[in-house]
């Protein structure tokens, strides 16, 4: 059998140096845009979202150098993945906060139906260690009479002695 053409041995596509330089410039611009987007996403959701939440993997550091087309593409793709993760985490966070706000409204409207429910401030996107708690008014009397109320506990626990 005569092999007319070996399709497995294709020559690499020829890219003109000027085209490749333009491609590298475009990739660098994309990296700059993605870095801005990532910074804005992480900052908007701080402290609930940090860099560690969106980091794809610990990147190997090889020192500063001029990157080729392939390396720039890898940096761009990894950054794009981090931005995507950041948006997912931020969206989940927004969903949790919206659900928590709805729950708080329900708790305030009808405490008796949410007995002993505890809603941390952090789930509402607020700072502090406090939590909304549904507790009986006047202790055991309220429990017997069905008098329930929403209380906001305040303050963080004292640090443990060293």
């Amino acid at each position, binding site marked *: 059998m005569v092999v007319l053409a070996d399709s497995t041995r294709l020559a690499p596509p020829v890219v003109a140096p000027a085209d490749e*330089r333009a491609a*590298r410039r475009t990739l*660098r611009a994309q*990296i*700059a845009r993605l*870095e*801005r987007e990532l*910074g*804005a996403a*992480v*900052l908007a959701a*701080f402290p609930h979202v940090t*860099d560690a939440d969106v*980091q794809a993997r*610990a*990147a190997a*550091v*090889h*020192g*500063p*150098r*001029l*990157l080729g087309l392939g*390396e*720039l593409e890898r*940096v761009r793709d990894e*950054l794009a993945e981090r931005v995507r993760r950041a948006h997912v985490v931020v969206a989940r966070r927004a969903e949790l906060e919206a659900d928590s706000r709805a729950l708080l409204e329900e708790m305030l409207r009808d405490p008796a139906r949410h007995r002993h429910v505890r809603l941390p401030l952090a789930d509402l996107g607020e700072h502090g260690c406090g939590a909304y708690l549904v507790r009986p008014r006047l202790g055991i009397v309220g429990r017997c009479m069905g008098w329930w109320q929403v209380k906001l506990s305040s303050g963080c626990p004292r640090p443990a002695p060293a």
Partner: protein
Amino acid sequence: MSGDDPREGLVDAAVLDELPGLRLRWALVAVEGGHKTPRGLRLRLEDVSTRFRGANAIQLRTRPVPHAYRVFFRQVGLDPDVERTPVEQLAVERLIRGELHTGDRFTDALVLGLLETGVPIVAFDEAALEGEVTLRAARAGETLPAEGGYAHDVPRGRLVLADGAGPVAVLFGRRSSAHGPHRRTAAVRLVAIAVPGVPEVHVDEALWLAAEGLGR
């Protein structure tokens, strides 16, 4: 500051072609009054340190100058979340240590310039340099001199600051200890690394602040 205003440094044409906007600015400064941090510089650092709080550190990456360095780090193959940019590294040190003052005049002067402007500066002993400092890619077989006649290998293509004899510092990395300022240094060459997107006024301000810290 003794000598002239900050001057434009040399960047290799091949590097500049790939990374337009990258530049060096440098100034020559006579060191006066010993190597210990003078009271004025210490007080100034304390003032800057007090103004710098956790909220500043969190927002740092979105400010234009620190953002420009983060972008540049990624463009040259460094991950700023692993190997922090100079100003972010300084911010972390400030939050951990609670102060910036080290007692070493050279270090403190550079820290002041960096924290106020976000522009990193490298200081070299003028007497140890041979000719102009250039930003270029390392050539095969080049090394970074260290004290005691030792040397660190520098891989080919690594971006370095080099004088006429060879590399004297890796860009945003290790500086040759044989070229750093020491007790008997009479004059230092301050070299600021300006990445694309950093206005020249910030770069010169960083050099002026560091030079002020080294003057009497």
